[in-house]
């Protein structure tokens, strides 16, 4: 009887332990899901690996973002081209096998958006639409392979008919790439991606 209750207690304890682990994992998942769903919520920071493998991509992405902030469609187009080239040079095989499939999907999708941005010089609204989806790809990419700098995931609740849109910035200061000079200050940092 004592043995049994002891066993039960220890089972309970280990179950408790598992539960807390689960809780942590769920928290992580929720954290990512709510990037899309609960847009107004401020999220805790995420710490990612320090890595240089995404440096060229981040550089060109940020240059593209700055061009959109400046309402400069031509410059956005040329940044789109260099970003496209950076994706082409990205070596998926240098990353663990378990990540390769997802990385390939991210790069495929992101390349298409970069290409569209390149091809749509003069149509900044269309470039911005692609930039919005591209930003999610870059965000997910950085979470997986790491970053060489702190990035701020910034959210503009008004973009896309109030559906909202996310972009990444290297600074806390709000400079809105979806609206540029029309609504430069719209948005708030919802998550900080810090480097280990």
């Amino acid at each position, binding site marked *: 009887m004592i043995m049994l209750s002891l066993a039960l207690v220890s089972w309970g304890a280990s179950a408790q332990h598992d539960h807390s682990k689960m809780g*942590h*994992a*769920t*928290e*992580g*998942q929720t*954290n*990512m*899901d709510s990037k*899309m*769903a609960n847009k107004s919520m401020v999220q*805790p*920071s*995420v*710490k*990612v*690996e320090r890595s240089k493998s995404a440096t060229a991509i981040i550089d060109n992405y940020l240059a593209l973002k700055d061009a959109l902030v400046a309402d400069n469609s031509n410059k956005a187009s040329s940044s789109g081209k260099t970003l496209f080239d950076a994706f082409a040079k990205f070596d998926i095989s240098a990353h663990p096998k378990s*990540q390769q499939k*997802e990385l390939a*999907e*991210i790069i*495929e*999708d992101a390349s*298409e*958006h970069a290409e569209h941005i390149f091809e749509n010089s003069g149509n900044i609204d269309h470039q911005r*639409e*692609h930039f919005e*989806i591209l930003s999610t*790809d870059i965000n*997910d990419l950085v*979470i*997986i392979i790491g970053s060489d700098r702190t990035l701020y995931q910034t959210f503009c609740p008004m973009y*896309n008919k109030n559906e909202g849109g996310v972009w990444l910035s290297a600074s806390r200061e709000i400079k809105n790439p979806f609206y540029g000079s029309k609504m430069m200050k719209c948005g708030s940092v919802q998550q900080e991606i*810090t480097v*280990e």
Partner: protein
Amino acid sequence: MKLLKPIGFVLLIVLVGIQFIPSRSNQSTEVPSTDFVKTYKVSEQLGQILYTSCYNCHSNNTNYPWYSWVQPVGMLLENHINKGKEELNFSEFGTYSGRKQKSKLTAMISQVEDGEMPLASYTFIHREARLSAVDKNNLVDYLKTLKLATQKNRGNEPRPENIISIL
């Protein structure tokens, strides 16, 4: 002036010659399981809208107009269809990754909402491909529900183990 005759003759030969270039290659009789309408079990009504307004350039089966027999019009059409399919191919939608599906849904929604698609140059000739306000609303609403569903079971959200710590 003497030159005009031979030039005209050469042009005529070329024009006749190119009529033998095969066209109308984008046709298939079966709807594959990877087709958008099967991937998402699209209702017949919405499927019909997609067939009429989108599938001619965005699927592996084009319902060719008679003038596609005439070159170089046929070649132009072929080129246009290939470009369209490269952007979005409804016949192969099921082969796209979850990420790409969501991405394409987002683009479809904004293109249809903004009236960018179907192309004005296309509906100018193909009046039946125009979307009525009701069709447009139904289509956009439907695409939005699909997008939301794709978001939920995307399956390629960054996994928790990739996040080293959450502060």
